[in-house]
């Protein structure tokens, strides 16, 4: 078999993901480093905004701090995911880069899956880099109380812990905290898959963006409001994270498995729709 024939035979055997690695590499460069850095900085910004106003409270404020931080952080992550993925498919179709790529010897499913995996990797870095960087600050607050400091005495605060803890809210241990971050990542990845589906099916980026924001809002709101009814859905993850932040027991397994399954279904649908779409 000649080299060329062997190469052609190799792309035959790679099935529906032929060209995946090349496309994944291209998409990775879209996400790293700037988009990921932007999302990490946004997360730190939210944490600072929540943490600093709490400085005046003396005791037992870790629970509210964590809850507000997580609610706002999840909201920021969901919105960032929507805004950074709304053009991932439809934007490329509109600009013509999708036609350019799909005209090459790559399988159409690889176009969607390559993007999805790169987005998933970027979101994983964002969630874990931000979440793990914040944990020591939370742990410090759990031990010493929320630091009270004046904005003018910012350099003194580290050495001046105040307040005792009484019946303070327990900080999740590292294992539970990491599991919480993992489930948050699963939630974002589900939303990213949903955005791929919207981008493959619709013809207006405004519609993709609007539907994405709507889906994110519904997930967050139903997680907060609907309680156990959403246990096996992506909204169940939001609910479980808030429970954990409050020091309650929460089962993450059911919502995470449900969300990963839903992500798979949505991704397969996105691939199916994109495979049948005319790239005019």
């Amino acid at each position: 078999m000649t080299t060329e024939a062997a190469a052609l035979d190799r792309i035959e055997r790679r099935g529906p993901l032929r060209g995946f690695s090349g496309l994944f590499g291209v998409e990775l460069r879209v996400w790293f480093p700037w988009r990921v850095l932007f999302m990490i900085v946004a997360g730190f910004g939210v944490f600072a905004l929540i943490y600093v106003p709490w400085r005046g409270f003396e005791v037992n404020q870790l629970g509210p701090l964590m809850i507000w931080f997580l609610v706002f952080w999840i909201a920021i992550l969901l919105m960032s995911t929507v805004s950074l993925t709304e053009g991932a498919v439809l934007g490329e179709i509109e600009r013509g880069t999708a036609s350019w790529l799909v005209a090459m010897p790559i399988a159409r499913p690889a176009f969607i899956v390559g993007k999805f995996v790169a987005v998933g990797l970027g979101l994983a870095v964002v969630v874990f880099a931000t979440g793990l960087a914040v944990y020591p600050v939370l742990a410090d607050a759990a031990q010493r109380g929320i630091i009270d400091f004046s904005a003018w005495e910012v350099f003194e605060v580290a050495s001046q812990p105040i307040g005792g803890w009484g019946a303070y809210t327990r900080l999740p241990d590292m294992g539970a905290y990491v599991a919480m971050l993992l489930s948050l990542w699963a939630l974002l990845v589900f939303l990213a898959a949903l955005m791929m589906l919207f981008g493959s099916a619709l013809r207006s980026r405004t519609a993709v963006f609007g539907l994405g924001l709507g889906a994110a809002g519904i997930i967050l709101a139903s997680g907060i409001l609907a309680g156990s009814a959403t246990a096996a859905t992506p909204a169940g993850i939001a609910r479980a994270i808030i429970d954990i932040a409050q020091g309650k027991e929460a089962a993450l397994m059911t919502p995470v498995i449900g969300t990963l399954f839903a992500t798979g279904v949505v991704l397969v649908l996105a691939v199916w729709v994109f495979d049948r779409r005319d790239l005019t």
Partner: protein
Amino acid sequence: MTVPAIEIRQLKKRYRKVEALCGLDLTVDQGSVCGFLGPNGAGKTTTMKILMGLIRSSSGWAAVLGNDVSDDDLPARARIGYLPQDPVFPPSQTVRGVVASVARLYPGHPRGSELRRRVDGLIDRVGMIDIARRRVRGLSGGERQRLGVAQALVGEPDLVILDEPSAGLDPMGRRDMLSLIEEISSRATVFYSTHILDDVERISDTVVMISRGRAVAHGSLDDILTVSEADYTVRLRGDTAGIHDRLIAEPWVGEIDIRRRTETEDWRIRLTDDSVADRLAPLLASDDDCDVIEFHLSDRRLEDAYLELVGADDGD
């Protein structure tokens, strides 16, 4: 017997209420340089996109290098290079980066220094080696077009499909693009669309004219430029009124176009029947009031053929 590079039979494509292609038939032989002509909206880009698997036909059949395009045969697509109309590349990538990225998407691509050699060789071939490190956002329209050709050639294709490669280029850019196409044609079949008929006359050996979604002419450039035995150009000097009256009285003379010059007149005479063409010269020579300075079959340029064939189809 080699399979045609492109074979299309009764290809139809409908976009909601618009019928972009309505039963297109064409064949492009391997090794040829085929110009694909037609007015805006005739269906050229739609045809090319169907060949590249970017859009699906409503009905009919198309094959590239013997492979049915509806099979989404990726090994076959690895043998095709494609330059889309208005090519778009990631703006932050460099010229070298774009070509290298595309090269990595092809099966069995070289790696390391071998890849670099191939990429730089291609960039040099399209005359961009001096700006290989420039980002796409800093390229002119002509440079983007040349980069598009470089990426189309990166897989060393057997067939190159170019959608309006000369569009938007200045005269020098156009000249360079034509030279490049001529160079590509020495090792691959070239199927390209254009509105510039002079370019087609210069580099093509085959022409397909399309109008309203179907082919109105298809064949070698020589065949299309050859006029029938019933179309003559004559240059006369003297008083031509008499011979004009005698000619139009003949039932086998169709129409006479007259262009008056300072001392002479150029007549283009179309006969209704080419079997009586041998009567024309004696008739002209028999008139004593004027001299026949020139008499020959009319030359036809591609523009004449295009206007005649496509214009007729448009009802012009």
